[in-house]
């Protein structure tokens, strides 16, 4: 490919190739403080390429390729190239990652103890993780929790935090402009803007944490909290896992161990300040 960028996010190395310079230039700025893959060898490759040669120049649209591809994935406008890179990275993780049980969750940690915030897209977990990281929590990731089936520890995967719609202003009000990526309006998920994780996050990303609390946040409801039964946690986490079937019995044992060992609470929250307060309260009650 004409333009290439390699980066390591937590334990996973990526090599991103592109027919266009622009997405690579953005990655170079946004991931400037991240290391290269171990020994220079990436685990996964992602490619952004033009569907037809002339599509590189005329109304350029980005096709997503890599070690694993989705043949039906529609191309994105070049202006959303950064999002295309992320979708490509997500796809490689979802289809190719076998070392860790992948759970769709944001993770923050304090004193080596991790809180998982799991929920569907739109539950506000990225915004919440970003704001918690601005209030003394270590950000371990806003999208994937990597559970090690051997040790039961959570590994960090702190890629750029993907802020959406209302979450953008909530976080942008608290960080300098240089920590934000370009505004990407009109994506399939609405407006998207990325937050660069802070230096502490990147410096600590090779240090795993012990799972201590599982939270199921739901945005838009009156403030409420409840304990979640282990059987419900088990079902919800199998649904929140990306690669549970692929891991087979290792996944079953890892998930069972997590569910049996770690308390879980559902928190309904009307606004992000309330959610932060509720996370702190649940943490304090451990």
């Amino acid at each position, binding site marked *: 490919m004409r333009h290439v960028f390699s980066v390591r996010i937590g334990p996973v190395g990526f090599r991103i190739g592109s027919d266009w310079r622009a997405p690579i230039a953005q990655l170079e700025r946004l991931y400037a403080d991240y290391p290269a893959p171990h020994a220079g060898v990436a685990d996964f490759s992602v490619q952004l390429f033009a569907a037809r040669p002339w599509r590189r120049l005329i109304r350029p649209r980005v096709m997503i390729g890599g070690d694993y591809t989705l043949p039906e994935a529609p191309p994105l406008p070049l202006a959303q190239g950064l999002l295309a890179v992320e979708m490509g990275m997500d796809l490689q993780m979802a289809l190719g990652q076998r070392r860790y049980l992948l759970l769709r969750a944001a993770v923050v940690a304090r004193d080596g103890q991790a809180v998982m915030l799991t929920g569907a897209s739109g539950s506000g977990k990225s915004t919440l993780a970003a704001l918690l990281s601005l209030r003394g929590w270590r950000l371990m990731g806003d999208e994937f929790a990597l559970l090690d089936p051997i040790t039961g520890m959570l590994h960090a995967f702190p890629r750029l935090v993907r802020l959406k719609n209302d979450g953008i202003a909530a976080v942008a009000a608290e960080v300098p402009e240089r920590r934000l990526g370009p505004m990407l309006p009109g994506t399939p998920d609405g407006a998207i803007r990325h937050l660069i994780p802070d230096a502490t996050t990147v410096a600590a990303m090779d240090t795993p944490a012990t799972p201590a609390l599982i939270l199921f946040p739901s945005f838009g409801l009156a403030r409420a909290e409840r304990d979640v039964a*282990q*059987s419900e946690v*088990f079902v919800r986490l*199998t649904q929140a896992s990306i690669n549970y079937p692929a891991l087979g*019995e290792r996944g*079953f044992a890892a998930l*069972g161990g997590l*569910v*049996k060992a770690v308390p879980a609470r559902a928190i309904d929250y009307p606004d992000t300040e309330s959610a932060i307060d509720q996370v702190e309260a649940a943490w304090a009650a451990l």
Partner: protein
Amino acid sequence: MPSCAGMPLYRMARPETLAILRIDGFTAVYHRASGLTHLLAAPAPEILAALGEAGLTRAALLAKLRPDTAFGDGDEKNADEDRLGALLDELVATGLVACERAG
């Protein structure tokens, strides 16, 4: 769905093909042969335990389950047999229970 016609003996899948984890009121079972996870509620785990490797007929299973489970006796006998039959069919479909010829 596999048919158990003419195969009146029900057995639990061989223990080495299952990983079993009790989670509050439920039993999570990983079925190694299919790679599928099943979350069982009562009385399915009791049925598996009662069948064991030796196996039982439906009537013998019902008699064994009655003291410990929601299966009653007397007037509800036919309804219980139907309910147990439906549960066994489901368990056979998952592979957690096998049916075979007697003797």
